[in-house]
Structure formats: structure tokens, C-alpha cells
């Protein structure tokens, strides 16, 4: 369930298809995932999982896989 929610956050914030949201998709590797979209992604994830991320984690969120790893730190179960 959490994985579906996370993927929806990526789809909505970056304006990309669900198929594009693969674990190895990296920040700045596609035009849609720029710094402005990254902050929209953070807002979407925080809202969806009812959490508040540390600034360091926002900066470290460099891929889909890394996003999942960071969310686990905030007790989001995958």
C-alpha cells in the first residue's frame, strides 16, 4: 500500500507515468525531476504519509529507492 502511495506522489509531483517510477530513477536524470519538482515531491510525500522530513533527508533523496529507504526511517512500512 505504501509503495502505491509513494509512486502516486512521484507521478503527481513530477508529472510522469507510473511506469517511469522505477527504483533506479534518479533526481535530475529526467527534466521533470528538477529542484522545483523535488520540493513538490517532498510536500506530496509529507502530506501523504503525515510526516515532516529533515532537510538532510530531502537533500539525500536522490532516487526512488532512496526515497523508500528514507521513508522507512519515518516508520512508513513497505
Amino acid at each position, binding site marked *: 500500500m505504501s509503495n502505491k502511495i509513494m509512486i502516486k506522489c512521484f507521478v503527481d509531483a513530477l508529472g510522469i507515468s507510473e511506469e517511469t517510477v522505477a527504483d533506479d530513477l534518479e533526481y535530475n536524470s529526467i527534466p521533470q525531476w528538477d529542484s522545483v519538482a523535488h520540493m*513538490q515531491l517532498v*510536500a506530496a510525500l509529507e502530506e501523504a504519509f503525515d510526516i515532516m*522530513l529533515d532537510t538532510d533527508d530531502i537533500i539525500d533523496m536522490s532516487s526512488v529507492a532512496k526515497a523508500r529507504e528514507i521513508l522507512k526511517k519515518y516508520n512508513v512500512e513497505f
Partner: protein
Amino acid sequence: MLLSGRVAIITGATRGIGLSIAKLFIAHDAIVYVNGRDEKQVYAVVDQLNNENEQAKPLIFDVSDDRCVKDAFQQFYKQSKRLDVLVNNAGVLDDALIGMVKKDQIAKTFSINTFGALYTSQYAIRLMSRKKSGAIINISSIIGNTGNSGQAVYSGSKAALIGITKSLAKEVAHLNIRVNAIAPGFIDTDMARSIPEKMFQERLDSIKMKRIGYPEEVANCALFLASALSSYVTGQIIGVDGGMLI
């Protein structure tokens, strides 16, 4: 009531301009989180401000400590879930001629007056961006605009706040978050009363309206910037100075 249902954080709200802003926001039906470093002082002010609706709430943290700011915003988020207005008011004034300025004095002034506003804005913008709405008000100073002898450090810290205001306003306008600053002139606060008598008189003489300003007059401007009255105003530095010339 201009702020019904709105939630505000005001840093350095236990006295002076910050306290006046807190009072006015509460009078306009806002929920106000009163920030200060001293727990006793914050609770005393919260008790003083609170009415039967308990609109004043304590938020104790040191704005100059990024870890404290992070913890405070996480605590705030658990309680409130929304933030509509952030007033970056916490500030220190410690004048000295440039040859006599200590390194610690520079670090302290910039940590509180400038870095603190950046730390709080980081978290505030993230909360505001979820609702695509919000207002940030930075309390700068006329000295940040004009500079003044013996105030290189203070004016630098407040001028930086003006740059921060203009940059953030551009960065977050698409999120419907407005960022403005107030540049108070000579305002009747403990800070103003701490300067030597001769300098106090010189300051008064430099004001076209021939009187000191009152914290309530700065608060009125903050109310305007916090409310829908200023819904199309961003990136502005508004002087509340009675026509002061430095």
C-alpha cells in the same frame, strides 16, 4: 476579524514588536504560537495573552540553532498540521565601532537575525506549500536599508534579511506563498531604550513625524501583510518609520 482560523508562528514574541504582533493577531482570531528561548518567559506571555479560546500556545526554541528549529517545527506539526503565517521577528542589537567588534558578536547577531529566519523559513515554506497558501513576514530594520555608523554588523544582518525576503518571494510565489519584510524605524522597545540618551535624542530629531514609533504601529503593518488585505503583495520591504532619515 482578519485572521480567523489562521495559525501563526511569531519568533521572539515575548516582548516588544513580537509581543504586539501576537496580541493583534489574537485579537483578529488567529491561533498564535509564541516563540522565545526562555521557557518561563514564554509561558508567562502565553498566560497573559490567553483568553477562553486559548489562542496563544508556547513554542520554545532558539532560532539560531538549526537542530532546535527542526525539532520545534516537528513538534509544531504534530500539534497543528497547518501554518498560515510566519513572522521572523527574533533579533538582537549589539552596536560597536568596526574596530571593536568581536568575532562572537558577529556570529551571534547573524545567527539570530539572519540564519534564524532562514532556518524557520525552510520548514515554514514546506508546511505552507502543502496548502498552497501562506505569508512570511521578516522584521528587518531601517538600518538594513540605510546603514548606520557603529552598526555594521546589525545593518549587515538586517540587510541580508531584505535580500532573503526578495529572493524567497520570487522562489515561492508560484506556491501562493507571499514573503514580505517590514523595516521599522525608531520604535519604542527595550532595544531602543537601551541606547545612550544623546543618541536617543538624535534619533528622535531625525524623524519627520517628530516622535518615536510604537510596536502596535509595526503590528498593524504585520496584520496587513499576514491577511488577505495584502493578497497581491509580495517581495516588498515596507518602512514603518514616521519618515525617518538616517
